[in-house]
């Protein structure tokens, strides 16, 4: 038997030979359910499965695939429609909230740009603004990548925090530096109060910060969003650069006012960043779900073609067998 299968010319016959032998063996094993399933494969009434080898196409499998692809198409289409219906309102909100940050950039700008660092090793908080849900393109991946690069470049400097569930991969990469993650933030229409509470928790966790950096996706238009980092210098840094603020008159003690301004600025920046990021998230989800739907439709069309071809081939083969069987009978008579 071994020598029979060795040669190239009788390879085809060899395959059929094995198939027939296997079939006879399995037909003798009546107790096994697997055997029964294999025997069913030879049942000519189950379309296409008898010709599994010949066409490499399993019609039942194809039907299941077509069903699952159509379910996926429905999901991605719905997600795209939901995102596109929400984006207008989110855009309006992002525009309205953007102006809340006015006025501080001229005060803090000189300190951020050319300022002296404060003494000591106070950490810099890097707050990554991410979304809670996925399927929104590169919005979250971009932030995580950026944050990772920043922390890798200066390992001892940063204290990582994440706003939104999708920032938690950072916790597994930098377990020592990751301190806080806020999930379901702003799930029910974010209020400034909620932001204030988050800042309160943030501030209470460390005595002093040298700086707070807020990393988010700034919304430009429905297809563009840019990674932006807002820097808020800490109270000690501000005091160290008090000469840059010499032009300003303070109604009360400089230190208290600057400390309060620091907390106010963090809240204000988180407020603005959250809305911008939300808008970017919706835009990214809209485009990615749109692409996914298009791809799924293409796959669905290709699968449908394959299924029809397989079905027709099975029917043709059945017909050939019947006619050849009939003619063989007629010949023998």
């Amino acid at each position, binding site marked *: 038997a071994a020598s029979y299968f060795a040669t190239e010319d009788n390879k085809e016959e060899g395959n059929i030979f094995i198939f027939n032998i296997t079939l006879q063996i399995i037909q003798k094993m009546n107790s096994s359910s697997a055997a029964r399933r294999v025997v069913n494969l030879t049942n000519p009434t189950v379309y296409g499965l008898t010709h599994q080898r010949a066409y490499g196409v399993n019609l039942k499998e194809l039907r299941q695939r077509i069903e699952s692809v159509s379910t996926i198409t429905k999901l991605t289409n719905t997600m795209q429609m939901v995102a596109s219906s929400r984006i207008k309102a989110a855009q309006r909100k992002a525009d*309205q*909230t953007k*102006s*809340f940050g*006015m*006025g*501080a950039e*001229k*005060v803090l700008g000189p300190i951020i740009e050319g300022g002296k660092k404060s003494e000591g090793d106070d950490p810099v908080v890097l707050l990554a603004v991410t979304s809670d849900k996925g399927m929104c393109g590169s919005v979250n991946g971009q932030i995580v990548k950026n944050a990772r690069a920043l922390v890798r470049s200066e390992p001892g400097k940063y204290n990582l925090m994440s706003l939104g569930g999708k920032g938690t991969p950072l916790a597994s990469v930098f377990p020592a530096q990751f301190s806080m993650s806020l999930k379901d933030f702003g799930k029910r229409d974010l209020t*400034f109060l909620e932001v204030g509470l988050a800042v309160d928790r943030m501030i209470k966790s460390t005595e002093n910060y040298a700086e707070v950096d807020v990393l988010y996706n700034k919304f430009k238009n429905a297809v563009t969003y840019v990674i932006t980092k807002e820097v808020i210098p800490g109270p000690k840094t501000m005091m160290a650069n008090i000469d840059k*603020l010499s*032009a*300003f*008159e*303070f*109604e*009360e003690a400089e230190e208290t*006012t600057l400390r*309060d*301004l620091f907390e*106010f600025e963090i809240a*204000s920046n988180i*407020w603005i960043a959250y809305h911008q990021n939300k808008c970017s998230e919706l835009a990214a989800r809209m485009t990615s779900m749109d692409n996914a739907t298009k791809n799924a439709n293409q796959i669905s069309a290709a699968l449908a073609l394959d299924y029809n071809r397989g079905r027709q081939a099975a029917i043709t083969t059945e017909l050939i067998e019947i006619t050849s069987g009939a003619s063989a009978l007629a010949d023998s008579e």
Partner: protein
Amino acid sequence: MLAATRRVISSTPIITSSISRNVIRSRGYADVATDRSLVASLVCPHSPIFIERKVDLLTVPGSAGVFGIAKDHVPTIAELQPGLVVVDEGGKKEKFFVSGGFAIVNTDKTCVVRAVEAVPLDQLDVDAAKRGVQKYTQELATSNDNEAKAKAQIGLDVHRAMCIALGVSA
């Protein structure tokens, strides 16, 4: 057309130079109006109230006291207490009640008031303000720990300020 404008442009230097010999500064009416105005903005988290509006005087409730901001005010950073922001424009006054925030007058003479909450004064409910004062006075008296006391104090301050702004006695 171009030739005509060129003639006009070349002629004006002659005119203005003669004037400048006699007068320190020549101003048009439009210049006078902008010269007197302060460019002010009042912004809140949910939306801006007004941005870069030319006003004559802006009165803000600083934590160290109420003060007015006019054009050429010295650059200032002031924290706010609950109170009234009054916008004086051409003789008309607009009043907004703010809960707190910051007022910043920049070196370029623009002013931004960032309030956590700002509502036009006529939208405040007098009865609710009075009730608030009573409620928080009671809470302040009965509370034991520091946090509850602080909350009650804040509530009392805001509602008292509302009553003062509305011109009613608490």
